[in-house]
């Protein structure tokens, strides 16, 4: 709404160093990226490249070693009510039923839940009437939909998703992707999504950011210029195919060079 050119979420020179027993480990190294309001940005990269570290830093869940995260120009120092998180697993609390799980954020914040909005969300994701079910009575897809409702229940302006559908089968995953697209079409929530699936990244994003292997850096950025909603026809065009391959090559190429390096680093006598 305010200044068109000011990014909604901005990461400036984010560096995170973990100290481990075997010395310091640089998880992410001077990562910078901007996300405009209402944009969907995906972050892909080889596993262990610090994607999750970057996302958790953006949410204020853990502090950066150096650099900063700005939300609407203000530094994010801790958990922020404007930010909603969806984790790798649904992370529903097993001792609470669905209704109680979805109202958990309000309980922590001490706010009155927005029942009308929650009802609307439950309707959208098709979980109406499951309120008294416990998480173990729900399928994986239903659990993750519940987690999505929970994250959106307090109307965050930014939604951070950490490989949210990685544990789901591919059909459920596509269904979830269409659901996120639909919710985005209605709410225009700014979304940052971490994923292993390039297809998912292209289907959902305005931009796909490829991170390099450890230490994680922003290696390359791809614009995804296709109109929404992205139909099956659009997703099967040659442009999408080429883009998928380009991103795949970027990631695999990076891995290849890393393996080559590791191999030359660790040449040892074969006999034991």
């Amino acid at each position, binding site marked *: 709404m305010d200044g068109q050119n000011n990014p909604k979420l901005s990461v400036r020179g984010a560096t995170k160093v973990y100290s481990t027993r075997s010395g310091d480990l640089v998880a992410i190294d001077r990562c910078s990226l901007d996300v405009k309001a209402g944009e969907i940005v995906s972050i892909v990269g080889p596993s262990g490249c610090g994607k999750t570290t970057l996302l958790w830093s953006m949410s204020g869940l853990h502090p950066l070693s150096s650099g900063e995260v700005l939300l609407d120009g203000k530094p994010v120092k801790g*958990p922020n009510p404007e930010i909603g998180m969806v*984790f790798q697993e649904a992370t529903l609390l*097993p001792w609470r039923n669905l209704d109680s799980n979805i109202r*958990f954020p309000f309980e922590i914040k001490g706010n009155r839940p927005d029942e009308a909005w929650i009802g609307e969300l439950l309707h959208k994701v098709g979980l109406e009437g499951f309120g008294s079910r416990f998480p173990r009575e729900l399928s994986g897809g239903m659990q993750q939909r519940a987690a999505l409702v929970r994250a959106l229940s307090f109307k965050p302006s930014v939604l951070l998703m950490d490989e949210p559908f990685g544990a789901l089968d591919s059909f459920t995953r596509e269904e979830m992707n269409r659901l996120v697209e639909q919710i985005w079409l209605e709410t225009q929530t700014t979304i940052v999504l971490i994923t292993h699936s390039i297809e998912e990244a292209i289907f959902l994003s305005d931009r796909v950011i490829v991170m390099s292997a450890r230490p994680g850096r922003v290696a390359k950025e791809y614009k995804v210029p296709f109109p929404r909603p992205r139909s099956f026809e659009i997703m099967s065009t040659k442009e999408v195919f080429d883009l998928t391959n380009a991103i795949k090559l970027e990631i695999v190429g990076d891995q290849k060079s890393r393996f080559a390096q590791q191999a030359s680093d660790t040449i040892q006598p074969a006999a034991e």
Partner: protein
Amino acid sequence: MSDADAIPEYKSKPGASDDVGITNLSAFSSGPGIKSMAEVLAIVAVAVVLIGGAEFLLGFFEVPQYVLPKPSEIAMALVGDFHLILPHLGYTLVELLSGFAIGAAVGLVMAAVITQFPFVEKVVTPYILLLVTTPMLALVPLLILRFGFGFTPRIIAVALAAGPMVMINAATGFRRVDRAKIALARSYGASTLQIFWKIRAPMALPMILVGLMIGSIFGLLTAVGAEMVGGGFGLGNRLTSYSSMIQMPQFFAVVLILSILGILIYVLFFFIGKKWASWEA
């Protein structure tokens, strides 16, 4: 049996009971639940056969009463002398309840506090293990020397027996840190206290219940044992008294009461567990 050979039904999540300390949670989840009238009838039939068989065999072989009384004699003693035993049941319950309450409260608080500080936990754990493995009955003569023959030494012994049991199980529960769930709560800005009450405590609850159940059974054991060591009242005292007077029907009546007490404790925690910890199943 064909039932036991049947392929078990697929469960989406095979209960996470790998991180359990002294015992596992099967008491709450996978107990052989009674399902049908036929099963109830079978159980009753077995009881009838066992009791009737004992009655018949003891009569047939003319086993003297002081060796083993007949079930009917035990039942008659239980009914006839119940008014004499009842006050002693009351004393034992007072010792058990107050000792258990003290021990469990201290154990729970210590478990909750200690698990917050890994270093303290490492230092304290061997001593707690020592308390768990030492039969507190051994201390009763000493406690009697110090506190006399009243309630005090018994209550202390019960607390000492139950407390460490509760603590070690509760600590196992509190140690089950789920990073994702804590991150979830923190992402909503939860305070340390909120994380404790809304994440850590409910996650620990099944193990806490296991601790309370084992602790109370150990408490009962210790209470009765302490009563047998010294003092003029309580069910344990009745056991020594009746056996010294060779009143075996009364003796077995007291044993029966103790068994029922133990089963009641188990059933109580079984239903509490079913209500509050069934999500773990």
